[in-house]
């Protein structure tokens, strides 16, 4: 039996429209052999969690360039736990300062944050090493 592919939801929560990074990463992860679903823009935390559960994903990647990361990461993580989907790995990227990255990781709101300049290979390798399909 062929191994199940890792399933990833790439999501754009909030009002921010900067989707270049989200799209490039969605495509890069697909080319790295993963099943990728992209939510499109302007999603609420509730919509992101609903999509994650519906699509039965292993990873949720949040892309936030609007400074609202300390709002959305906690909300998405908490809503996933409430829905009994706390095993889904939450990662993210965007314009997120180092101090906030520490805060997100220490509080368990994000497993890893990839900042500008990270290669697609690095992100794909991290997912393959840390996520079981």
């Amino acid at each position, binding site marked *: 039996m062929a191994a199940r592919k890792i399933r990833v939801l790439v999501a754009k929560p*909030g009002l921010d429209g900067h989707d*270049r990074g989200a799209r490039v990463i969605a495509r890069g992860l697909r080319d790295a052999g993963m099943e990728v679903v992209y939510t499109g823009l302007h999603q609420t935390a509730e919509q992101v969690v609903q999509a994650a559960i519906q699509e039965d994903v292993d990873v949720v990647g949040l892309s936030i360039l609007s400074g609202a990361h300390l709002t959305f990461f906690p909300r998405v993580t908490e809503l996933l736990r409430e829905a009994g989907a706390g095993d889904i790995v939450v990662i993210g990227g965007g314009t997120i300062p180092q101090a906030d990255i520490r805060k997100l990781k220490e509080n368990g709101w994000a497993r890893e944050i990839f900042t500008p*300049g990270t290669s697609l290979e690095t992100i794909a390798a991290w997912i393959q090493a840390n996520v079981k399909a």
Partner: protein
Amino acid sequence: MSQDGCKDLEKDYQAWRAARSGLSDRPASFDTVSGLPVRDLYTPADLAGFDYSRDLGFPGQYPYTRGVQMNMYRGRLWTMRQFAGFATAAESNARYKFLLQRGTTGLSVAFDMPTIMGYDSDHPRSYGEVGRVGVAIDSLADMETLFRDIPLDRVSTSMTINAPAAVIWAMYIACGEKQGVPSEKLTGTIQNDILKEYIAQKSWIFPPEPSMRLITDIFAFAADHVPRWNTVSISGYHIREAGSTAAQELAFTLADGFAYVEAGIKAGLDVDRFAPRLSFFFNSHIDFFEEIAKMRAARRIWARHMKEKYGAKDPRSLLCRFHTQTAGCSLTAQQPENNVVRTAYEALAAVLAGTQSLHTNSLDEVLALPTEKAVQIALRTQQIIAHETGAANVIDPLAGSYFVESLTNQMEEQAEAYFAEIEKRGGVIAAIEQNFFQQEIADAAYRYQRAIDSGQRIVVGVNEFVDPDENLDIELLAIDPAVERDQVERLRRLRATRDNLRVRETLDDLRKAAAGTANLMPFILAAVRAYATEGEIIQVFREVFGEYREKPVF
């Protein structure tokens, strides 16, 4: 140069190529940042058929390749316009005064995401986003605070607002009224470019058709009441930031411009009544010559199409006047001090290409909103170019360069090929609905990322010359979460103290007008003067016009 002369030269060039073939090239891809291959040397043979008068002319004269004014920077330097705005209207007001004291010559307002998307600060969708990426403006009261002690008849103000542009512009006009400045004296720009929102920046609210109506209503209102206002800033900046090539930025931006011209004509306006107030906004990316060629080509293409295709008679209708911002997407989070250098080259390209105004990015903008110190360095970069380098002494100094002229021609050819493709697809709005632009840009962005990941393209500090001990903890501007609470409280007080009966009347009138065909600006102004909020006005439009949804592609 004659055709025969060109042929001889091309032969000589090939002979020279053969002679130097023993000298191997270093292993690099010799192409522009857009992936356009360039030759090792350009000669007059690259300009076969070049006609000075037809292709360049003189500054301030058709086809305006060399500049839109006769005197260019000999008369007046470009406007140094730094985009700024954060947190509350009061804090942004203080930043504007800081910039004006240090020699900035025009204001440029950044709004927060809820304002950009037409939500009040107390809307559930605004939670966590108030005052983050720009200033929160809910009503005329906030606008009055934003420009307190800044006389609106003496500054020009550019406002980066699109889907709700009519509402924010009405607030600015009403703010002028409160200061005793008649609308005829106001100068500035609203971005108001909804087409590039669908294409690249993605801050849309309504579907294309009612959005275009709001824009043509603004054209007509401005022509009658705010004649010195730039009604649209047709923007390539965001198209480029979303990952496009230089040629795509040029082509898609001008195609959007032509679509607005056609919409204005279709709405019954004479082209010369509104076209002189159209302005442009380009990105200055890191590939120096390509950017200069792009901007020179833009002026020539716009003038030719406006004259020949749209029959404009007023010379002002032919002018591609533009603002430039250096490329945010060229900056790196790694070794951020290097961003000062990148920005300086990009700014120099814009100046050599004859920009009318310029924003230089701050070194820390890839990480957060800029600190005051970083903003000052960015502004000083422009002042050094203006006053120390000599770059502003001679008009269009690179004209006649075999390379620059050849690249300018190439940019024009690529743009024309895109115009033909867009027309075949049924025009800009049809092409948006077919995801044409979005897919072209996504493809280019992905190619670019791949080229960096593979090391084919070097970005200093990112994939080469990396500092392994780098500490990215630099001083950043943080927005206090109390900003949101305070703004929500101010809004609550406004709703409690204004004449709510009057607000309801004006919103009812607006709803009726929106369902009909009248120009909406007077109705929006009436609601704004009554202190109806942005969110309340936009909500009326959401109900009448509906909301846009995109089919996400990657």
